[in-house]
């Protein structure tokens, strides 16, 4: 295991020479790489095989299995191909925090999506359209790949703010 580098966590004592052995990565033998590669290939075959398991039987488990295997593959690549297994604690923290942050984004976003419709709070329609089997019109046909007319014409589709003389909206909001 490598020493903690002097410049990373404890700055060198004044005058001391830098530690020449700090942060040197060990030579990972080629055999290790080949074994990890073999493991990755096997896991890949497993992924494909698991996808063909009958959906009636395993239902929601299929995505958990698929992502689980993918995670194992990713962890192997990270630890061995990317040398994180042999890296300093700082690098490990950096790696972990990247993924933690992704899960923060995912998790908190789903506190919204998972709970929509739990409270009968009126937002102007009885049910959120994503959950209602409401007929939606076909998309507005337009020029498929041509540029939208990105020029500001005179009459844009502006907001409703145009020169209303009367009716103050009282206490804002809905």
């Amino acid at each position: 295991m490598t020493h903690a580098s002097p410049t990373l966590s404890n700055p060198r004592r004044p005058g001391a020479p830098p530690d020449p052995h700090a942060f040197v990565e060990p030579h990972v033998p080629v055999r290790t790489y080949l074994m990890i590669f073999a493991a990755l290939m096997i896991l890949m075959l497993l992924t494909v095989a698991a996808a063909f398991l009958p959906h009636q039987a395993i239902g929601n488990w299929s995505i958990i299995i698929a992502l689980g295997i993918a995670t194992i593959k990713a962890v192997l690549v990270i630890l061995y191909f990317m040398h994180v297994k042999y890296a300093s604690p700082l690098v490990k923290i950096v790696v972990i925090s990247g993924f933690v942050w992704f899960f923060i984004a995912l998790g908190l976003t789903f506190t919204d999506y998972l709970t929509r419709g739990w409270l009968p709070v009126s937002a102007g329609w009885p049910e959120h359209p994503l959950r209602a089997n409401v007929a939606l019109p076909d998309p507005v046909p337009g020029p498929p790949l041509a540029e939208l007319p990105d020029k500001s014409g005179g009459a844009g589709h502006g907001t409703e703010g145009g020169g209303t003389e009367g009716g103050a909206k009282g206490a804002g909001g809905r």
Partner: protein
Amino acid sequence: MTTLDITPAPLEEPEDYLNKAYNIRSWFLTVDHKRIAIMYLISVTAFFLVGGAFATMIRLELATPRGDLVQAETYNKLFTMHGVVMIFFFLIPSIPATLGNFLVPLMLGARDLAFPKLNLLSWYLFMAGGVCGVAAMVMGGVDTGWTFYTPYSSEFATTQVAFTIMGAFIAGFASILTGLNFIVTTHTMRAPGLTWFRLPLFMWSMYATSIIMILATPVIAIGLLLLLAERVFRLGIFDPSIGGDPVLFQHIFWFYSHPAVYIMILPAMGVISELVACFSRKRIFGYPLVAFSSIAIAVISFFVWGHHMFVSSQSAYGGMVFSFLSFLVAIPSAIKVFNWTATYFRGSVAFLTPNLYAWFFIGLFTIGGLTGLFLAALAVDVHVHDTYFIVAHFHYIMVGGTVLAYLGGIHYWWPKMTGKMYTEWIAKFAAFAVFVGFNLTFFPQFFLGYLGMPRRYHAYPPEYQVLNVMSSAGASILALGLALPVFYLLWSLWYGKDAPANPWGAVGLEWATSSPPPTENFEEQPVVTWEAYEYSRKEPDVVGVTPNDTSTPV
């Protein structure tokens, strides 16, 4: 008898980073963090003036209830572009890219940042993004609001959405590179003896800001990219007619944009810590707490973005979660305010311009922060969302907070950056003008919002006019206060007094070298044996620092 005309040979100026070379290449191809900081300073100021021009138009229009200055669609463009320019091209880079770039290596005792070429690249990316954004404005502008909400921005807007988005997207990479540079430099390039808890609090703030920059900015990058793809390639990601959810865009957008406001305020808080310590001649009270509060703000800021979406048809339960977490994020900010205030107690306080800005900041940030708590309360926010209450709240933080701290920092480090002193009396005058003008502009807006005046409307019912006129009048005073520094700071470059290495008698590595510093920052690598803000130390055993040098300029 003729007098001999003997003109003495000019004294040799010591070489510093400014006079090392004068040609264009030495500036546009520099890798010196100090020169890059100056280039950022100039460009950021230019964008500030552009954003200010839009604000002027807005306040002129709003001085009268009828929409008589500009059309509704034009007004939409004005507030959109005011927001886009001020946020993406002024506030986000302001302190990190100018003061941060200049000071981080100096405060760490290093010769430069870890990646000087990436630093230069970040300036070019920033300029490319800014030029893209301004080009969009010249080509007709954009009217979606700086928030680019779908499906208007993805399907129906016919204005320059694509160019504006590209501008923001490109400028985001500048942000990421800056954050990357600061994080690596702080970890690997501190001078011998400079442990984490000997760092100035400005460094803690820059580090926390950099964490936010690298974790949050990529998310808006992908969000804007998906929006761009939806417009240009007619993908259907946010298209409601096929089941897309426009609120998803809001989630992705605010996941960045909320931490972004902490990118704007954390560096400001770091500046204030430096100002408070120097101008009370004391170590910041509760240093470890203030240091950790920066990190806490950076972390918790990622948990609260949904409070921008309380009325968006986000689920009510989700709203409650975000509301609760939003209360949490106020705690570390409050810790800082208490600690700054406690630092002044029994300090030796100087009535100088940077300190004025610090006082103004503490007061105005407190008001802005407290009104933020009102908004975190879900029930209150439902009523004041999209009204001028929100506008007032965020301007108290962004202008009363960040801009004032930025001005304070510019004044404080101006002698270090340029080797010149500015004129104190006019600086004080400008600071008071800013304070008075700012409050007159934005305090009435709290009332306007509470009484129900919606934001982003170019016309309003006549009963709101009095407050609006107050606001517009205040804006003119604010404009004066903000314009003055441009003039007297520039004036000082030619006619100001030369500044000594440590004009404020402050403690910190940046003051241990000449004003302006040489290109390599220090004559020899400093070795740090003292704690942060050790104003109590009497012996000047530190290279170049005389902690009790109280030579203050007029």
